[in-house]
């Protein structure tokens, strides 16, 4: 990995002041910043290469198609999929998960079947299954967490049974930051004849992902959380499954042959990409992936761990601060949730903002998990490899000042 200060130059958004303070951007779990390479790639594409894909007979369209399909190859390689036909471009994680629920789920779930998820899921990996279960009169079961916030494998063994058809689980929690035992859950699912759907939104920009080694049948993630543009995401699906599934939306691009009475669907993945896709988004995402691969995901992971090993103990030992989840930095992939005394997270986030520290406050779209912690909301600080120790120090200092401010006040 290049020198960190050099690396930070790649992210122009870092170098501005916020509320007249140095900006410490600690909301990377919501969306990452974008390197110059990605921004430039989008500009170049729109300035010189823009054309529609899969339909033009002219050179420009042929080239745009080539770039779009090249992006698929790059992403296929990045997550160690077997075949680039297993890579479906989506709007993001949310759309990928909805796609699986409303195609595979719709086709395969019968009344009385069971869908098993964990209590830690982001709403986008919860509501599609909850609604599918309601539509099909199927049963939705939740795997509990241990007191440390980890997926309880013993409970998983009780919940995943021969009745289970789908297991859906997040790879990394966006609230607690811990890694789910995806491999073990995949084995349990497969042993019981179920498939496993993995929400990789918080994993792909922090740890190396190998969908085959994980045993994932589906794996969804968002470009914008991994240095790429908004509005582009990826759904990986095993080819045998994608081929059995009915289309998600209908229109151009996804058909083979259209008659007045009937139509034939295109091959995967085009079958799932109705309409003009986010071409520039895919091309920009490919550049983001190339950027990450140039750094090396092992190095990115090591850098994240170094930052977390610095920040977590400091936060834990700050008086009045309660950190949720594990006290082991290795169980916090980029994410720490905490509260300060009885202060409301919104009040805290406003105070930190005045000190230039950008964090998220709320339930982080994971209400069941946050409620299981015994609170309505938390403050969440989330790191990326381009953060530095100064960002961590700034957070700790701002927390001290926030405590001082409010102790002189209401609570």
């Amino acid at each position, binding site marked *: 990995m290049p020198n960190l200060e050099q690396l930070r130059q790649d992210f122009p958004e870092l170098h501005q002041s916020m509320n007249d303070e140095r900006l410490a951007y600690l909301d990377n779990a919501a969306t990452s910043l974008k390197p110059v390479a990605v921004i430039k790639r989008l500009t170049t594409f729109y300035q010189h290469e823009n054309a529609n894909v899969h339909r033009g007979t002219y050179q420009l369209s042929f080239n745009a198609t080539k770039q779009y399909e090249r992006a698929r190859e790059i992403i296929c390689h990045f997550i160690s999929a077997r075949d680039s036909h297993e890579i479906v471009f989506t709007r993001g994680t949310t759309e990928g998960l909805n796609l699986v629920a409303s195609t595979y789920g719709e086709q395969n779930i019968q009344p009385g079947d069971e869908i098993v998820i964990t209590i830690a899921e982001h709403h986008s990996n919860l509501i599609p299954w909850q609604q599918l279960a309601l539509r099909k009169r199927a049963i939705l079961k939740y795997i509990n967490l241990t007191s440390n916030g980890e997926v309880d494998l013993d409970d998983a063994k009780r919940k995943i049974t021969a009745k289970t058809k789908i297991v859906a689980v997040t790879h990394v929690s966006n609230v607690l930051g811990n890694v789910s035992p995806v491999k073990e859950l995949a084995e349990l699912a497969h042993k019981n004849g179920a498939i496993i759907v993995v929400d990789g939104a918080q994993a792909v920009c922090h740890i190396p992902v190998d969908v085959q080694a994980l045993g994932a049948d589906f794996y969804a993630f968002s470009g914008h959380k991994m240095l790429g543009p908004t509005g582009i995401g990826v759904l990986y699906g095993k080819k045998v499954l994608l081929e059995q599934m009915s289309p998600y939306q209908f229109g151009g691009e996804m058909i083979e042959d259209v008659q007045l009475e009937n139509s034939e669907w295109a091959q995967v993945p085009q079958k799932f990409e109705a309409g003009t896709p986010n071409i520039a988004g895919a091309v920009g995402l490919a550049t983001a992936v190339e950027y990450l691969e140039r750094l090396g995901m092992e190095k990115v992971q090591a850098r994240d761990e170094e930052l977390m090993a610095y920040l977590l103990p400091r936060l834990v030992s700050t008086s009045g601060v309660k950190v949720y989840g594990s006290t082991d930095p290795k169980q916090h992939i980029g994410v720490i949730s905490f509260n300060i005394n009885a202060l409301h997270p*919104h009040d805290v986030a406003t105070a930190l903002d005045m000190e230039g520290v950008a964090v998220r406050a709320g339930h982080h779209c994971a209400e069941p998990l946050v409620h299981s912690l015994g609170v309505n909301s938390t403050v969440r600080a989330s790191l990326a490899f381009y953060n530095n120790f100064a960002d961590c120090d700034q957070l700790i200092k701002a927390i001290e000042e926030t405590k001082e401010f409010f102790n002189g006040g209401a609570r």
Partner: protein
Amino acid sequence: MGLDKLNQLYRAVILDHASNPHHHYVVPDATNEKTLHNTTCGDTINLSLRLDSNGTITDIGFTGEGCTISQASASMLTDVMLGKSRDEGLAIAKIFSDLAIGKEHSAKEVKLLGDAQVLTEIMEFPARIKCATLAWWAFQRALSDEPREEN
């Protein structure tokens, strides 16, 4: 900038209302009631009130979980609205909601807001406008949605 600017937002009167909220209860025999959620943080405000046959608000209370701003705002609202007629109350709530979306009102109208006048400083903190307005929206909705069946 630092925390100096925070003093603007967290005036003493706001901190007072938040730590000792007024009318913090569910009105027994409420005629109108509304629960609203702030979807960004999961906070909840339940507002309940009783209208008599003349359309006067004879009791009003709130419960729920929330930040300093949302709790103070709800407390201030109950102070202002108690004893007002339904129409007066709705007019005042409209002034507050208007200010929150940047519309201007005369100084005389703003005065009608009572303690809640200080909350107009919230415009300096766009991310917090929702916290301040939640109770006022709940009030408007409580009065404009179908009233509860008399029992």
